């Protein structure tokens, strides 16, 4: 599933990153806790969040997320958008709340990150 298909499914507005929306998504994570994103995602994760501060972009950058969907119509500021562009991170805004946005994607076959994550270090 690529970011363009996700945008359509969530009836989302593209805030930035049109040139990268053909990229494939490996899995998705819905979280407002950036600590959880850092601990439990894997490469090419789509992040769904209600947070719009600059640390969301930094967290996505470190975690190699493939894009970010801001739920419940929340809109990031220009500083956040600029940093996302610098990191080639497409940003979307959907009016769906977190639970419904995640549910729609999960129902369409986009899995979570848990199966591939080894929590206790190995």
């Amino acid at each position, binding site marked *: 599933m690529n970011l363009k298909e996700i945008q359509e499914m969530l009836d989302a507005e593209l805030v930035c990153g049109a040139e990268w929306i053909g990229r494939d998504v490996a899995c998705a994570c819905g979280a407002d806790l950036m*600590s959880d994103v850092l601990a439990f995602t894997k490469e090419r994760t789509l992040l769904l969040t209600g947070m719009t501060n600059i640390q969301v972009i930094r967290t996505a950058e470190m975690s190699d997320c493939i894009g970010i969907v801001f739920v419940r119509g929340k809109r990031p500021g220009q500083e956040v958008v600029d940093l996302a562009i610098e990191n080639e991170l497409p940003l979307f805004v959907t009016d769906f709340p977190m639970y419904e946005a995640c549910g729609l994607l999960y129902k369409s076959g986009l899995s979570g990150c848990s199966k591939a994550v080894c929590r206790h270090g190995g």
Partner: protein
Amino acid sequence: MEDEQAVVLEFELKGSDFNVAGETSSKIKRILQQIGVRSDVIRRIAISSYEAEMNVIIHAHRGKVKAMIYPDRTELLVEDEGPGIANIDLAMKEGYSTAPDYVREMGFGAGMGLPNMARCSDQFDIQSTVEKGTTIKMVIFHDGEKGEKLSG
């Protein structure tokens, strides 16, 4: 080890300077990409560095990050001057945190930072003195298998 060539990067951090939080780890990540380190390994180094950087900014007065990039590994040394950690065993437990509410509102301070650093690195060492500061040393090997397990 003394004969080894390393790329050494050093950065200063200021406590509570949230506007630039993450810039240090971002720079380290970009250098690792230029050097050509494997992407899943870079991800583990970047996450380790970012968690440590955030800890300094959240808890300490000031700190330093030193990244030493060798051909086979990256060593991260993060030293801060600050309140220190009274009980390291407790701080290493997932969910334990002393972060203030405004930090939690930013999505941090969930008590995952130290355990996540330990999980992402191949060697992890923490020393702390109350009312002086904390030193964390992490080593991540560039050909390690841990990254494949963590990133799937």
